[in-house]
C-alpha cells in the first residue's frame, strides 16, 4: 500500500511538471498545444537514447530538456502564421508525427518495443529507499519548475503572455512581438515537458511509442483544466488528482472485485465525469487564476 502511494506521488510529481508546462503555454499564454505529449516524448526518448549510450542521468536529463526545448521552438516557429485554432490542430498532427517516428525508426527508438533496461535513478539504492529518493528528486524538480513558471508569470514577460492570450492585437499595438513570445514560451514549456518525460523514462526504466498516444495529451489537459487554467498551483493540484484517480481505480478493483476489463473504461469514465462536474460547478477550475494586485501606491 505504501509503495503504491509512493508510486502515485512520484507519477503525480512527474505529470505535475508536464501540467505546469502546459499551463504556462495554454493557461498563461492561450496557446492551445494539443501536442504536449510530443515534447514530453522527445525528452523521454532523448534521455533513453543517451543513457543507453552510457551517459549518466544527471547529464542526460538536461540534454533531454534541450532536445524538447528545440522541439517546442520548432512547433512555435513552424506555425507562426497560423491562427490559434489551426495551430492547435497542427500541434496534434506534430505529436502523431513524433509518435510515428518513434514507432518506426527501430535503429534509434527500438520501434514498437521501445527502449527498456535503462539504468534508472539511484542504482545504489533499492526498494523503499530508492522510491523515497526518487520522490524527493521528482518533488524538488516539480517545485523548481513551478517556481520558474510562477516567476515568469508575474514579470513583464508573463504580462505580455496574458495580454497575448486575451487580445493579441493590443499586445502588438503596445510593441510586443507576439510571434517571438510564442516561440519563447514553447521552448520554455518544451524544456519543462522534456524534463517530465526524462524523469518518467528514468523512473520506469522504459519508454515506448504507446506512451505517446494523443490520449496522454488529453490527460495532461484534464489536469490543467481541473486545477484551473492560468494558475500554477492549480496545475499541480490537477496533476495529483488525475494521477491518483487514474492509478487508483485499477487498485480499487482488488478491493471491490470489479472485472478487470471494466476498470480501464471506468477510469476514463471517472475522469470524464470529474471534468464535467468541475466545469459545471467551478468553470474556472479548482484553483482559479487570481488577479495580480500590486497594492499600487498613490502617486
Amino acid at each position: 500500500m505504501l509503495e503504491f502511494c509512493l508510486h502515485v506521488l512520484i507519477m503525480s510529481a512527474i505529470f505535475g511538471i508536464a501540467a505546469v508546462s502546459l499551463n504556462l503555454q495554454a493557461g498563461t499564454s492561450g496557446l492551445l498545444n494539443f501536442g504536449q505529449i510530443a515534447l514530453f516524448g522527445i525528452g523521454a526518448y532523448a534521455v533513453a537514447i543517451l543513457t543507453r549510450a552510457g551517459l549518466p542521468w544527471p547529464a542526460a536529463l538536461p540534454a533531454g530538456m534541450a532536445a524538447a526545448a528545440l522541439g517546442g521552438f520548432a512547433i512555435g516557429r513552424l506555425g507562426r502564421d497560423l491562427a490559434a485554432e489551426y495551430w492547435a490542430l497542427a500541434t496534434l498532427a506534430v505529436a502523431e508525427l513524433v509518435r510515428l517516428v518513434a514507432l518506426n525508426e527501430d535503429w534509434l527508438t527500438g520501434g514498437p518495443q521501445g527502449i527498456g533496461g535503462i539504468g534508472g535513478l539511484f542504482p545504489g539504492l533499492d526498494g523503499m529507499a530508492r522510491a523515497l529518493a526518487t520522490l524527493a528528486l521528482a518533488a524538488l524538480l516539480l517545485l523548481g519548475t513551478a517556481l520558474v513558471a510562477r516567476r515568469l508569470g508575474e514579470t513583464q514577460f508573463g504580462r505580455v503572455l496574458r495580454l497575448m492570450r486575451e487580445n493579441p492585437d493590443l499586445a502588438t499595438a503596445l510593441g510586443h512581438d507576439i510571434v517571438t513570445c510564442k516561440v519563447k514560451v514553447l521552448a520554455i514549456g518544451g524544456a519543462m515537458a522534456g524534463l517530465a518525460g526524462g524523469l518518467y523514462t528514468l523512473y520506469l526504466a522504459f519508454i515506448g511509442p504507446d506512451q505517446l498516444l494523443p490520449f496522454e495529451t488529453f490527460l495532461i489537459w484534464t489536469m490543467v483544466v481541473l486545477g484551473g487554467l492560468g494558475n500554477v498551483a492549480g496545475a499541480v493540484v490537477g496533476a495529483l488528482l488525475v494521477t491518483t484517480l487514474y492509478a487508483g481505480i485499477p487498485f480499487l478493483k482488488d478491493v471491490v472485485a470489479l472485472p478487470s476489463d471494466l476498470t480501464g473504461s471506468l477510469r476514463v469514465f471517472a475522469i470524464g465525469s470529474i471534468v464535467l462536474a468541475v466545469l459545471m460547478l467551478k468553470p474556472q477550475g479548482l484553483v482559479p487564476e487570481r488577479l495580480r494586485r500590486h497594492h499600487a501606491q498613490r502617486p
Partner: protein
Amino acid sequence: MLSAHDVTRSFGGLTAVSHVSLEIGPREIVGLVGPNGSGKTTLLNLLSGFLAPTSGEIRFDGTAVRARRAWQPSRLGLRRTFQLPKLPARMSVLEVMLAGGRLPAGTSPWRSLLMPGRVRREEAAFIGKAMGLLAEVDLAGLADHPAGGLSGGQQKLLGLAVALMDDPAVLLLDEPTAGVNPSLRRRMADHLRRIREGGTALVIVEHDMGFIGDLCDRCLALDKGAVIANCRPDELSGNQQVVEAYLGRRRPGVPLRVVAGGPAGAKASGARA
C-alpha cells in the same frame, strides 16, 4: 514624422484606400473624417502597420512601416488605440498599463529569473508612471480592478492611457469618442489637448464633427478611399465634395437649404442651380 506616399489597399475587388498621400508633422492634431466605409479605419490600420498596403509606402521617422513587423512602429514611437479596446478580464488595470511600458529586463525570461533586483527596480519606476497616467484619466482608484470590468468609456480612457506609457511621438486614435457620453467626450478632448502639449502628434478618426472642429488643426476628408479635402475643420462644410460625400448629390430643381456654412454653402448651391 509620419508620411504615406501613394498608398493603396484593396480587399479583393474593393479598393478601400486609393492613392493616399499624407504627411503628419510633429505636435499636429489631424482629423480623419468621411462617411461610413470611406476607408478611415483601413487607413489607420495601414499607418500603424496592422495592414500591408497593396502598393505605396508608409514611413515613420525615416523607417518604413511594415506589416510583417506590426509591433515595430510602437517601439519607435508610433502608437495606436482601438475603437473597441476589448481589455482583458483577467488582468488588472495597472497590469494592462505596465504591459504598455518598456521593461526590457522583465520582458526577458532569463533576466526575469536571474536578475530579480533589476526587474523590481524597473517595475517600481513604471508603476509610478502608470499611476500618474491613471490619475490623469481618473482611473487611479481602479488600478487593482479587472480591466475588462470597466465601463466602455473607462476602457477607452484606459486604452488611451496605456498607449501613453511609452511617450509616443505620434498617436493614432480610432474613434476615441464612439459610444462615449457627452461629458466624458469633453474630458476626452481635454486629455487629447494635454497629450499634444506633451509633444505628441495625434491622428484622430472620428465621426463627431463638433469634436473634430474643437480639436484638430487640420482635417483630411476621405470618400471611397481617396482624400477629397485637406483643410482646416471649419472649411469642411464649405467644401462641396465633402458635403456631397456625406449627404449625396443634390437632385436638380430641388432647392438646397443651407443650415450652416454661410456663403460657401450658398455659393455651392448657386453654382449648381
